[in-house]
């Protein structure tokens, strides 16, 4: 390597690190759950905005139905207990009521179906993508490939408790949540449509990022596709969402959303860092043994 090339390598690495370290960490509530949380995670994408709105709408409906049924039961328990009403009626029919309690639920379901289908098509119809990332689920970690940017690939493993402690020693402000933080995050630019292609290498896994409203199974032999557009910089965590064996709980997904410039710098750095043979994948060379 020439002196100029070495200088460029060091400078770009320094720039990337500087930008990433001043970038937002995922505070509780954005990109990860908060203690005693009772609602959905905060949205960082238009699909998740729509999911959140739709869920709020549904929550009103189902709460009203549950409270209505509870109220009827309480009324019945008070008005028609044996002491209050010693003589039962023999009523077994009431056509109007029976029609109402069939037709009104149908209407409620139709009212639900309209935004439901809209949300479904928003999720499944993938818009024109700005970039593509391929996520491969493996036992028990994720590998990310960037086919649009030189096809580099790297592994993303959960940070162990010791690694988290070590990172805290190096930088007391570092936020690496246990069971969510990874060594190499998937990095994407903000406000860009990212097409995510997902596949499983061995058993079925599932790629999920709650803040983006994204979840898709990683199935061997099947290349699935989904998309998201992150509207806010930060780090967003998800966890493998299909039982895949003993370390299913320990293969998280971390997506760092950065500005266009930071993304370009990271790509340049990643191409070098993750050039084939240079990544952190376990380099297991399997020699065929006679059985």
């Amino acid at each position, binding site marked *: 390597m020439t002196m100029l090339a070495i200088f460029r390598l060091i400078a770009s690495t320094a720039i990337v690190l500087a930008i990433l370290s001043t970038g937002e960490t995922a505070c509780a509530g954005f990109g*990860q759950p908060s*203690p005693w949380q009772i609602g959905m995670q905060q949205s960082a994408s238009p699909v998740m905005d729509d999911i959140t709105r739709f*869920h709020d709408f549904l929550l009103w409906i189902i709460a009203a139905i549950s409270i209505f049924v509870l109220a009827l039961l309480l009324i019945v*328990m008070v008005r028609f207990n044996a002491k209050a009403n010693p003589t*039962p009626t023999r009523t077994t029919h009431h056509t109007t*009521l029976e029609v109402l309690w069939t037709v009104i*639920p149908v209407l409620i379901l139709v009212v*639900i179906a309209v935004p439901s289908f809209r949300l479904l098509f928003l999720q499944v119809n993938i818009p024109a993508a700005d970039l593509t990332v391929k996520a491969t689920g493996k036992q028990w970690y994720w590998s990310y490939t960037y086919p649009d940017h030189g096809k580099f690939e790297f592994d993303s493993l959960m940070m162990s408790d010791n690694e988290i402690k070590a990172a805290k020693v190096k930088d007391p402000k570092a936020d690496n949540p246990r069971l969510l933080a990874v060594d190499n995050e998937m990095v994407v630019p903000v406000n860009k449509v990212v097409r995510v292609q997902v596949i499983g290498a061995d058993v079925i896994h599932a790629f999920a990022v709650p803040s983006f409203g994204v979840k898709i*199974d990683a199935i061997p*032999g099947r290349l699935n596709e989904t998309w998201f557009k992150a509207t806010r910089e930060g780090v967003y965590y998800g966890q493998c969402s299909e039982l895949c064996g003993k370390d299913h709980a320990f293969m998280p997904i971390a997506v760092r959303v950065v500005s266009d410039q930071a993304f370009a710098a990271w790509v340049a750095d990643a191409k070098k860092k993750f050039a084939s043979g240079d990544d952190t994948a376990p380099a297991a060379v399997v020699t065929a043994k006679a059985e």
Partner: protein
Amino acid sequence: MTTAHATHDAHETHGHPTGWRRFVYSTNHKDIGTMYLVFAIVGGLVGGLLSLGIRLELQQPGLQIFHDAHAFNVFTTAHGLIMVFFMIMPALIGGFGNWMVPLMIGAPDMAFPRMNNISFWLLPASLTLLVISMFVEGEPGAPGVGAGWTVYAPLSTSGHPGPAVDFAILSLHLAGASSILGAINFITTIFNMRAPGMTLHKMPLFVWSQLVTVFLLLLSLPVLAGGITMLLTDRNFGTTFFAAEGGGDPVLFQHLFWFFGHPEVYVLIIPAFGAISQIVATFSRKPVFGYLGMAYAMVAIGVVGLIVWAHHMYTVGMSSAAQAYFIAATMVIAVPTGVKIFSWIATMWGGSIEFRTPMLWAVGLIFLFTVGGVTGVVLANAGIDRYMHETYYVVAHFHYTMSLGATFGIFAAWYYWFPKMSGYMYEEWIGKLHFWVTFIGVNLVFFPQHFVGLAGMPRRIADYPDNFAGWNYISSIGSYISAFGALIFLFGVTRAFLRKEKAANNPWGVGATTLEWTLPSPPPFHQYEVLPRIK
């Protein structure tokens, strides 16, 4: 030839074996029903202990009880399989179904009394195979099946090279055969052996519920059997039905499994619905509101329940058209279910209600199943399921419908029919205490699980990110309270058998109008030797 025409005096020894033969060689629906109920109690205790292990581990972040997560996955798998196949089904169908269907339709026994016996005895064999699976290798170097009750391939094929999954498959085959034979028995009995005058539209709703349930089993279990046989051959005989490297498709297994799996959940709740109809009518001292609507609502739930299975598969990469169909079909089920909820309330309306123990459980079921049902409506929408799939929101949903729906139905039926079956009265204060402790306990376990699910906590994980700790702690406390409730139940059963307070033919009064209440408590070994006539 005199033995073929036994006289009436010889009847006592003919057809009434004693000792161990009475139960091992039984051809009596009441004895077989009792065996199923005892077996269900055992299954419930084992399944409950497994759930205690799960909640003990999940009480705090970190791994405290299980030194590796595979053992935890084995516990969750076994908990699900045992509660479904060795608690709920034996209690509701094998237990109360066998006991009460012949009594309610005026039949002396089931159509095939001896086949009834093998249906029961296949279950201890099935449970044995499942327990064995927990002690042989599953995942490399670790015992037991850690693939969930859904045993998806390839985790259950290449992911579990040891024999544990094979034992589980054979266990499921036996349990499935038990239910298919039982279905044949129930359908034949209900269609052919109703007493003169009892048309289909006059038979009790509990009998309707059993008829719908066993039809679902008859249609869905063979598909499960096919799917798990293909799993067995993939694992052992070189086929690649579910292996992409051989041209197969893991998603095919999911279709085959859930084609059974979805009707199965209606199998678990519909008999409870039937029992609730009898109990609500009895204690309201009014006939059930809208009998035909109730009967055909159950038929509708069953029929539509056969064509909605892929709502368990919204994230596999299905086309939007397919997802849209399954959303619509799944939501349709809410309509007949709502008809039932409102009809039970309308039955109570204008009634003169005594809140004895069975009625407490029934009213509890009506409210809590509604809560579980509405979260099901939420999950039916694929757009939202995208977020909720494989989170604790789903766990909360199915436990509300099963642990607070089907299980409350089991206890309601238990307290309602225990006097008839045993001839003894339970103590009302113990029954009520059991209800309240369980009600508080199970709600504490499962309501907070909606919260952690909404916050994004995945299912089937032995350890979780620290911020999920708060509600998990509450949930675990609830499980200890529920366990105490189970102890109260066992205490109450023991006391009833020790006190021997005799129960009347009909302890419940004028509201109990079905035929079993005309018989002594307990009924004679053979009943209806002269068939009743129904007006």
